[in-house]
């Protein structure tokens, strides 16, 4: 277990000062390993917050390259990164933000083997992907590995965050995705307003830090949903589905 250096303690003074956080909490962050799947808008904002906050080890997974239309919301990239792999481009700014950060990058799209390998080593996973198929894979892998994950979504002027934790009474992503159809709608067709990815990516980082440090409350089966046009949040309850194909053991 790595301990905070004196200069790290100074750097993180504003977090260490929080009741319930303290040096112990900051050291938990330093020793934590978080997997971020998807380095689009949510991934950039979430990784930036986690690196700044002092998470010690991030693994980034994305096979995509930077294109011009990414630049209006994926804040780790700029014009000089066009055509580069996102996970490579992201390293420059993240290392500048936190020189002590251990950064592993996987320049491929997530698959179940990779997710299982990473979740076996890591403390938790952040879902910053833009599609349901990968989320179903993450869900299965996280259920099997008994690890928590924090899922975010942002599209149009809407966004939401939900945390999935290993607990008998907790719903899983399958309990959610079975409530709607298969039609994918991504940001390319639907667009997204830039600040939404900052809001949701940062909300995901907040939940990750709370999970790592055991801070505050993670409300099981709650979805925080923002309707950006109205500027209003709503908390929704996601019940555990009695017949969920993903989380109900077949007897």
């Amino acid at each position, binding site marked *: 277990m790595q301990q905070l250096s004196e200069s790290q303690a100074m750097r993180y003074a504003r977090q260490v000062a929080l009741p319930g956080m303290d040096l112990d909490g900051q050291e938990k962050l330093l020793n934590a390993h978080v997997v971020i799947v*998807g380095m*689009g*808008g*949510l*991934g950039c904002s979430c990784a930036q917050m986690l690196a700044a906050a002092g998470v010690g080890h991030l693994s980034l997974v994305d096979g995509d390259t930077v294109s011009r239309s990414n630049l209006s919301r994926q804040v780790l990239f700029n014009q000089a990164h066009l055509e580069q792999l996102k996970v490579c481009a992201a390293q420059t700014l993240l290392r500048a933000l936190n020189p002590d950060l251990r950064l592993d990058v996987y320049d491929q799209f997530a698959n179940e083997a990779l997710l299982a390998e990473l979740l076996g080593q890591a403390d938790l996973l952040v*879902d*910053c*992907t*833009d*599609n*349901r198929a990968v989320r179903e894979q993450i869900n299965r892998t996280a259920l099997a590995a008994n690890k928590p994950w924090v899922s*975010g*979504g*942002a*599209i*149009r*002027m*809407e*966004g*939401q965050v939900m945390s999935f934790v290993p607990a008998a009474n907790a719903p899983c992503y399958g309990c*959610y995705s*079975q*409530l*709607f*159809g*298969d*039609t*994918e*709608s*991504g*940001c390319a067709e*639907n667009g*997204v307003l830039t600040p939404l*990815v900052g809001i949701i990516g940062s909300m995901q980082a907040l939940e990750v830090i709370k999970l790592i440090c055991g801070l505050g409350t993670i409300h099981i089966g709650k*979805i925080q*949903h923002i*309707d*950006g*046009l109205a500027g209003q949040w*709503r*908390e*929704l*309850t*996601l*019940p555990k*589905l009695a017949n969920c194909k993903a989380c109900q053991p077949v007897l």
Partner: protein
Amino acid sequence: MQINIRFFALLREQLGCEHIEFDYQGERTIAALRHTLAAHGDAWLALINGNTLAAINHTLCQDHAIISEGDEVAFFPPVTGG
């Protein structure tokens, strides 16, 4: 049966409608309510295309869920992007 229906986000914009208070006389399931609303016009077909979530009193539910007097039923699109 008096119910309170709310539409959120893109759905609210598409329907041009945020809120209906409604004396509903149909079958008391979400599925039946979706069909009643879908008859209001083309935009309203979004409620039966399989891509709109429903919640009763802030709890997400399946189409066979039962609506009771005074419930708030909310509809919104799933958030899938990133």
